[in-house]
């Protein structure tokens, strides 16, 4: 004799705790006028080099800082500190991604009112970070020319969760026969309309266009806050 299973309806969002903290962070960033950009990529995509270059170029013009998530080492934070911007490390231990609570915790004693832009460098991973809202205004996904054009098709979830893509190490594009059109088509396939920037942090190529985009986004978000 078969029984109908007795079901008790609940409907609970498993990531609710993270989302609640992320929402509070977003409100806090907005009220302090801090525009927040997070960066995700696979390990070795050149995230830290790109961020170091970005911080160095931005620092004369606005107040910038960075939080960097790393499994164990502080190497990235030390490298980023060379830009002269305030940098803080979030050591995640065994965790393969950042969560909103870690960002909240590491910002506890920061005066956000003194910051125009805050960058959050996630742990190198193209899977897990997709699930966690960090309260950021803009999520950047980075891929290097050395990773190949099909990266977006292999990791559509993270590309879909991002707001803009940055193709790094373009000084190496010719050497690795990187096919620009295919890469762009693949990005558009998993995230139609996404802005794509091609940069070399080493030579500085493409950085201007990216920084202009960032300035526009920032300006638009400040208008929204003041209206």
């Amino acid at each position: 004799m078969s029984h109908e299973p007795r079901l008790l309806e609940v409907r609970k969002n498993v990531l609710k705790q993270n989302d609640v903290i992320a929402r509070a962070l977003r409100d806090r960033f907005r009220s302090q006028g801090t525009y927040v950009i997070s960066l995700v990529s696979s390990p070795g995509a050149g995230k830290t080099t790109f961020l170091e270059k970005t911080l160095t170029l931005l620092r004369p013009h606005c107040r910038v800082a960075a939080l960097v998530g790393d499994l164990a080492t502080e190497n990235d934070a030390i490298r980023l500190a060379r830009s002269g911007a305030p940098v803080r490390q979030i050591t995640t231990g065994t965790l393969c991604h950042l969560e909103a609570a870690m960002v909240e915790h590491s910002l506890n004693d920061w005066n956000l009112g003194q910051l125009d832009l805050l960058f959050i460098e996630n742990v190198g991973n193209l899977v897990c970070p997709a699930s966690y809202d960090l309260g950021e205004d803009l999520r950047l996904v980075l891929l290097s020319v050395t990773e190949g054009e099909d990266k977006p098709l292999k990791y559509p979830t993270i590309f879909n969760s991002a707001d803009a893509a940055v193709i790094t190490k373009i000084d190496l594009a010719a050497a690795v026969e990187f096919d620009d059109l295919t890469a762009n088509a693949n990005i558009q396939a998993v995230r139609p309309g996404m802005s794509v920037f091609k940069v070399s942090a080493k030579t500085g190529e493409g950085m201007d266009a990216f920084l202009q985009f960032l300035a526009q986004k920032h300006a638009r978000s400040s208008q929204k806050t003041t209206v």
Partner: protein
Amino acid sequence: MHELSIAMSIVDMAQEEAERRNVRVEAVHLELGALSGVVKEALLFSFEIACDGTPLEGSRLVVKDVPIEVYCPACNLPKILASMQWFCCPDCGAQTAEVIHGKELVITALELKQ
């Protein structure tokens, strides 16, 4: 792999709910979106580990896959994506980034021990 910490959250939440209502859990029902960033096989495997030594030990995780539903601006209708590598309307081919469903990671029900 973040599935283990997600599985642990699921077990915690289900256990809390079960205790509050004074019931025993046979299975946890979950809606899992294709865009949730969570790998089903890894989650199922992690769930067993996460249940060990808790009142939920031996319970099952019943996963309902939620496909990606987008809004097609050309058809003016919601549509189910044919492939997550191709964000365009399966009927007219219009590209769209407007996701309606597919990010779910939701406990929908507890199946109770009889």
